[in-house]
């Protein structure tokens, strides 16, 4: 029941938030149409962060309980996190090209941290694939999942300090958002979050099915 409600609301909310982002919210004066990326880039980054946070928590719980439920949660969340992280990394440079005149800026800590996050969790998924035995695989992945998350603030800090010679970047004030823009943004944020949960359910049940098939196969082979 819960899942049906979730599915239905996403079905309605996705076109609705697209409408809000493209038609309801006014076109920004200086950035023009490119500013529309904002409604997808930021929610994408938020979902990726949420997904990785869940990997972290589930990994700790797995090491504490050795309950494979948490391993599946962590794995499903990491997969979705990587997808949304990719979205963020693809939209970020397009924004950057118009805002700073360059596709990439190695001194921008958020940008670089997301690239490192992406690499870490790709490594996490690779690790999952390259160990045969279940308990080992889950333990290794959990240890790596915790290490990766612990590392994020240090990565952010080191990239932030990386350009000591340059004057600090002037951060664009976000407070000046138009009220309509705000509405479009928060609806989009909400939709993305719901999308995460839908994907999460889907991926989780896929993994569970895969595990069952593996179980049955090993039983058949005796």
């Amino acid at each position: 029941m819960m899942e049906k409600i979730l599915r239905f609301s996403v079905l309605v909310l996705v076109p609705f938030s697209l409408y809000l982002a493209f038609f309801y919210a006014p076109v920004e004066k200086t950035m023009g149409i490119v500013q529309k990326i904002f409604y997808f880039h930021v929610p994408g980054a938020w979902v990726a962060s949420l997904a990785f946070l869940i990997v972290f928590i589930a990994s700790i719980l797995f090491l504490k309980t050795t309950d494979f439920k948490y391993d599946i949660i962590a794995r499903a969340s990491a997969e979705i996190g990587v997808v949304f992280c990719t979205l963020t990394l693809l939209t970020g440079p397009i924004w950057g090209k118009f805002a700073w005149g360059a596709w990439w800026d190695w001194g921008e800590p958020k940008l670089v941290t997301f690239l490192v996050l992406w690499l870490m969790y790709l490594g996490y998924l690779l690790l999952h694939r390259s160990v045969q035995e279940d308990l080992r695989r889950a333990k290794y992945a959990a240890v790596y999942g915790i290490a990766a998350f612990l590392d994020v603030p240090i990565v952010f800090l080191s990239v932030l300090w990386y350009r000591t010679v340059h004057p600090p970047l002037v951060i664009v004030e976000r407070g000046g958002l138009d009220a309509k823009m705000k509405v479009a943004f928060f609806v989009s944020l909400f939709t993305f979050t719901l999308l995460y949960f839908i994907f999460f359910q889907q991926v989780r049940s896929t993994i569970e099915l895969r595990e069952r098939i593996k179980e049955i196969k090993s039983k058949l082979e005796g």
Partner: protein
Amino acid sequence: MSQILAILWKDIRAELRTKDIFISMFVFILLTLITFNFAFSGEKLQYEVVAGAMWVSYLFAAVLGLSRSLVHEKDKGCLEGLLLCPMERSVIYFGKALGNFLFLLIVQVLSLPFFSVFFTQAELLKRPLYLFISFILGSAGISAVGTLFSAITVNTKARELLLPVLLFPILLPVLIGAVKLTLFVLDPQPIYEPLKWMQLLLIYDIIFVLFSNLTFHYVVEE
């Protein structure tokens, strides 16, 4: 403590007999150095490039040494022997990590004359204290995380292939911090604040020594 030293002593003795980790790390560093020189052919290399070349070669050499140090244990069944010994798992961790740290440090110090001969404009020994601090803090971070991760990858299908994939993103703050500290040594008019980077490296080292120590037993136990 004496148990940690016993494991360390075992590694040192094994290494003194075969010398294979040591020689391959050292030759690898020399090769990287020469490759860098030709890759930036004929250019008078900037300080930034020299510092970068040093740490890139150290990082890759460390990966060689790290994966070897556990492959030996695994393939000859020594790890089981170590696990059967009546001692804490963290003793094994610290023993192995200390060995990796020491090997890396020795190779770094021995490679210094070559760096100063080949990169003639770099005066490496102008601030020897800072250079040595960068070696100690950098290598501590590399071997703290590296020992844990090589204990993970030794049981995977890809082994040596997977180790750098998992390790490098996590080690990014160490790389940035160590390079910045080394730049402070090389640059005649340093503008970098060495204290800040030392703090960053120190924080990283403390966090990951504690974390690896806490999680090592999940990784090695069956």
